[in-house]
Structure formats: structure tokens, C-alpha cells
């Protein structure tokens, strides 16, 4: 569905802080179709700048949520953080193909690998499809960045930390991956920074996972 200029303005419903720099922004959905894993282009009303953010909320929610980390030298992440309920954002989308194949959802085995706010699409997938057979590796610096950890089954969520020892594994997600080989029939989804994706892809390739089963959404 395409939006007109007028329709592309969506009202902010709330802003929930998760850490001093990470927050969940909730905006009107206006009935737009959406598949878990897709992203939005979001920007402050009146600004020429916008950025891509994976949707954090579920397919059945009547709103969109995005998980944003305020970037030191960023522009949009700072602008969005100032928003209050009732303000408007310009929204384009949802877009993208980083989604689950419908025929794999019921019986497929999934490995989700994320760094930082790259967990967003997986939060949406896990909450949209209860009963999904997944394992989620989440790499962060500090353990307080385990955003909404309670939303995942404890046995399926593995927090990998490098800045403190408060996670389930001390080290990078790629270190965990090397020590815990993946079964070849696993559908692997990677979302996060460029270097992690580069490295994780090579490890999965070495472990014999066919490249057609590896999907990535590259952050920067």
C-alpha cells in the first residue's frame, strides 16, 4: 500500500526508555500490511532525514514499534528520542524481504543472530509466531542491553556480552557460534553490524550450512 504525503504522517503513541540510550518508539500503524522482519523508513515530521528501522512489534499489533539506539554522532536517533505522544513522524514502508518463509514457520529450525538493536526483527518474529522453534544469540557490550529479555523463552535466548560477565556467554556471538556448531538444516537469520555478519557467515559456511539458508539484514 502506498502512502500519500499526508498519509505518511503517523502519530507518536508513546516512547519507552529501555536504557539511557535505547528506547522503543510506538507509532500509529494505520492498517498498513506488515510481515515480521520488515523495516520502516522513519524521520521526524518536517525533516529531510530518515533512517531504516526494523519493526519491533508483532504482525497482530495495531501499532508499529521500533527499537532505537541513540547514536553519538547520529541525527535521526536523537531527533526521534525527543518525540512525545501526539507528535508526528513521517513513515515509509513497511519494506524488505528479511522475513520467514511461510512453509518453514511450523516445522523449521531457526537460529537468530543479532548484535545490539539488530534484535528488533527477531523480537517481532518470536512474538508474531508463538511456538517458533528458534534459538536467539544476542550480542551486546553490557548485560543491561538485553532489551526486553523477558519476552523470550529463557532456554532459547543466549546473551553474549563483551563488556561485563552478566550475560550467558562472555564473548562475541561469533565466539559462541564457533564453540557451538549449527546443524546444517538450520535456517539462519543474521541482523546487526557489518563485521558480525561477515564473520558469522563465514563460520556458518565452514559448518556446512548452505548459503541459501543464511539470510542477513545488514546494519552499520
Amino acid at each position, binding site marked *: 500500500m*502506498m502512502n*500519500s504525503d499526508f498519509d505518511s504522517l503517523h502519530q507518536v503513541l508513546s516512547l519507552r526508555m529501555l536504557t539511557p540510550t535505547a528506547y522503543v518508539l510506538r507509532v500509529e500503524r494505520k492498517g498498513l500490511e506488515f510481515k515480521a522482519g520488515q523495516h520502516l523508513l522513519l524521520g521526524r515530521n518536517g525533516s*529531510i532525514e530518515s533512517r531504516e528501522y526494523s519493526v519491533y512489534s508483532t504482525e497482530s499489533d495495531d501499532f508499529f514499534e521500533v527499537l532505537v539506539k541513540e547514536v553519538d554522532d547520529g541525527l535521526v536517533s536523537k531527533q526521534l528520542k525527543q518525540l512525545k505522544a501526539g507528535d508526528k513522524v513521517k513513515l515509509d514502508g513497511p519494506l524488505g524481504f528479511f522475513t520467514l518463509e511461510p512453509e518453514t514457520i511450523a516445522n523449521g529450525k531457526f537460529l537468530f543472530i543479532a548484535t545490539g538493536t539488530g534484535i528488533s526483527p527477531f523480537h517481532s518474529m518470536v512474538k508474531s509466531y508463538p511456538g517458533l522453534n528458534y534459538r536467539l544469540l544476542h550480542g551486546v557490550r553490557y548485560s543491561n542491553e538485553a532489551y526486553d529479555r523477558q519476552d523470550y523463552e529463557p532456554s532459547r535466548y543466549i546473551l553474549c556480552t563483551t563488556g561485563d560477565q552478566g550475560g550467558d556467554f562472555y564473548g562475541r556471538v561469533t565466539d559462541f557460534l564457533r564453540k557451538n556448531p549449527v546443524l546444517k538444516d538450520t535456517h539462519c537469520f543474521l541482523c546487526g553490524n*557489518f563485521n558480525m555478519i561477515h564473520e558469522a557467515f563465514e563460520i556458518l559456511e565452514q559448518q556446512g550450512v548452505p*548459503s541459501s539458508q543464511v539470510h542477513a539484514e545488514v546494519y552499520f
Partner: protein
Amino acid sequence: MKYHLISLGCQMNLSDTERVKTVLHQMGYTATENEQAADILGIIACSVRQKAIDKVYSRIALWNKMKNRKSLITFVSGCVLPADKEKFLKLFDLVFSMSELPHFPDMIRQYGVVTPASLIQAEVADIQENKAVEQNDFSALKPHNLTSARAEKIRLNPSAEMDRFWNVEPTYTSDFEAFIPIQNGCDKFCTFCAVPYTRGREVSRPSDEILAELKMLVAKGFKSITLLGQNVNSYGLDKKDQELSFPQLLRAIGEFGKESKSDFWLYFTSPHPRDMTDEVIAVISQYPVLAKQIHLPLQSGDDGVLLRMNRKHSMEKYRHIVQTIRQLIPEATLFTDIIVGFTGETDEQFENTKLAMQEFRYNMAYIAQYSVRPGAASSRWADDVPKETKKARYHALTAELMKYSHEYNKTLIGKRMRVLVRARDRKDGYLSALTEGKLVIRFASNDFSLIGQFTEVEITSASPLSLEAKLCAVKSETVVA
């Protein structure tokens, strides 16, 4: 009243330029190659490389100096990133996106420029618009007659805006080759490309308009027609079953060619491997007017690089497409685009691209050394492959291309081929032509009446990227329905 127009970049921009010219002509302006003589100076910009944007800045600096001597209007349109657009607003008199082209005459009118054509148009426009707005029928509004007051009132969605733009009849630069835009924008977000940020989301043009334009061109005797789009084979997907799919569109064109016994070659560019279905290939194999030439961008032959480029397909998928082409259309030529030296590309990954070149044996490859595209996601990553390495990889891959294309071309020696004669060749006494597979051929002839016609030649010698031939038949007249 004269205009001078500079078009930068790709075939899409050239096609857009043809429509801009029409609007200017309808306002009573005539083209001039001399910018000093122009009353309106415009640029259709390209943001693929910084160099192209730098050209816009240098041109407008010059034009603004010219304003000290004479009254003139400057404008910029085309592929412009939001950040550049903001700067251009301070430098150009008019900055508009291509979908806003139908409002261009009104923008000019607001500058106080009254041409005889614009006066008549404004009056007619008022009557037509009043009626259309009263009846809430925006589709009835003609492309170049919407006045600004109503344009403000009628906020059309991007899809409707593009429909109005496509309704502008282009001023074709050739009388036998033409482009038909069928889709605008891109939803793929390849990390090396800024198009999703400059042209916005994918919007498909109504198929009845595409078919009408095609039939009109064929009736006028056009021989080579190319369907254009950033992701031409995702045509129709944005309309969610309300529009023909790409293979259905090709089939409709194929059927038209068959029923009307028309003689033309239909091409399309650029497709994305992700949306290249077996059905598309099967349809091409079934209809003579659908040219047996496929441009299938590879970009890299390494899965890891493809992943970082966010290409959304694996080598396995690409391989399947090529195998299907070879199986269903063995005579088809295969063209591609490749980027060498993309951020992080290792020697081993480049070797995989070389292996792909050996495996797929392209007839032509447009090989580019990676350079940062401002606004693209990869512009935030280190451009970490040294220039010298990129250059070496470029030359190595070009050598591979030449080897395989030469081998293929040699197999054509002695064969008779149908070609479309395009122009006088650079070599005196020769004409230049293209085969259906877009292989470049030259043959000795001074018969310029052959230009724009199909004719038959016999291949006499082969080079890596071109062929020589001798004329062996008189020109054939096109059968027009």
C-alpha cells in the same frame, strides 16, 4: 524562448529527459545546445556517484553567474538525495521530483513567464480541472494542466503522481529505438546503491498505458523497444494482484506481436535475480518479438559479498536462473553487471567472481570498480580495498570477459544474422548494427537508408567485443499492424 537541458546518468534519466522535453516544447520552448542562448537551463541529475553530483554544483555556479547578464530560470530534477535537494533549493530556481513534472508549467508560470502555449493551456486547464475536481475524478486530470492552487488541494499519492508523469508523451531522441518506463523506484535496498533514497518506493505503471505506448511505437515503425525500471521484473508487485505481473506483461506484448505480425525486438532492463522467475524465461522463449538477450546483474560471485551487498539471493539461485535460460533459450546472449573491490572483498571472494565469469560465460559484462555512493548504506563503511587492488581485479575480470566473449563470437563466423542498423560506424564506409542479442557488428556500406532498418549480414570475423560482417540482403520492410 529556448531551453538547454543536461541529462546525467542512466537510461532511466534519459527516458525521463524525453518527457521533460515534451513539457518544455508544449510550453513553446525550443531546444538549444548553446547554454548562453537559453532562457531556461535544467539538469536531470544522477546521484550514483559523487562525480555526477559535483557536476551539478559546478554547472549551477556557472549559471548563477550568467544571471548577472540575463534573466533566466534554472531547474534540477532526477535522482537527488534529500541532503542535496536541500542545498539545491538555495541554488536553483526550481527543484522538483520527476513525479512532479506535470506541475512544471505551473511552476514556470509562477515565475511570471508567459508563453502563448502556457496561456492557452492555463485556460483549458482551469475548465478541465474544475470539472474533474467537482466529480472527484483525479484520473481525468491531464498531466500538464494542473494549476498550483489545486495541486495543493489535491494531494495525490505517489502512485497517482507517477501515473500523471507517465502520461506525458516523451520526445523520442530516435525514430527506431525507444524506452518505455514501466516502473519507478526501488524497494531492494542494496547496500551499495542510493536509488531507494532518490527515487523512492517501487511504483508500477498501469499495463494498459504501457501496452498503448508500445503499440503506438510499433505502429510508427520503432524496431527496438526497451521496458525500463530500476527493478523491471518486480513490475506489478506493488499493486498486489490488481495489475499484471511481469511475465503476464511480457506475454501480452508477445501476443500483440504474434497477432499483429509486427516486426520489433522487445528488451527489458534492469531485472533483479530475486524476481527472475522460470515463468519470465519461459515466456521469453515462446514469443519471437521478445528479444533473446538477458541482462542479469551478478554484482559478485561470492555469497558472502552478496549478503553484505544485501542482494537477497544466493549464487545457487543465480545459477538456477542461468541454467534455466540456457535450457529454454539456448540462443540467448547473457549480459551482466559486476562490482569489484566492494567493501571487505577478499582475494578469495574476488576469485569466486572470476569463477562465476568462467561458469556463466557472459557476452558482455559492465564491470565497475567499487566507489562509495553518497547516501547508500555502504557509504558508512570503510572503503577498504586499495585502489590498485580494485584496478587489478577490474583488469583481470575484463580479461576473462574478453576471453569468453571472443570464444563465443568466433562460433558465429560464417553465420547469417539479422541485425538492426543503428548508425554510421566510426570507420569510414561502414555502418554499425546490433544483433537481436545486442552484439555489436559493423559492415561495409554507405547506404545510410539502412539506418533504423533490419537487414541481414554474414559474419566474417570476430573480436572479443564486436563482429565484422558483410551485407547479404536488402533491407526488409517492417510489417505494421
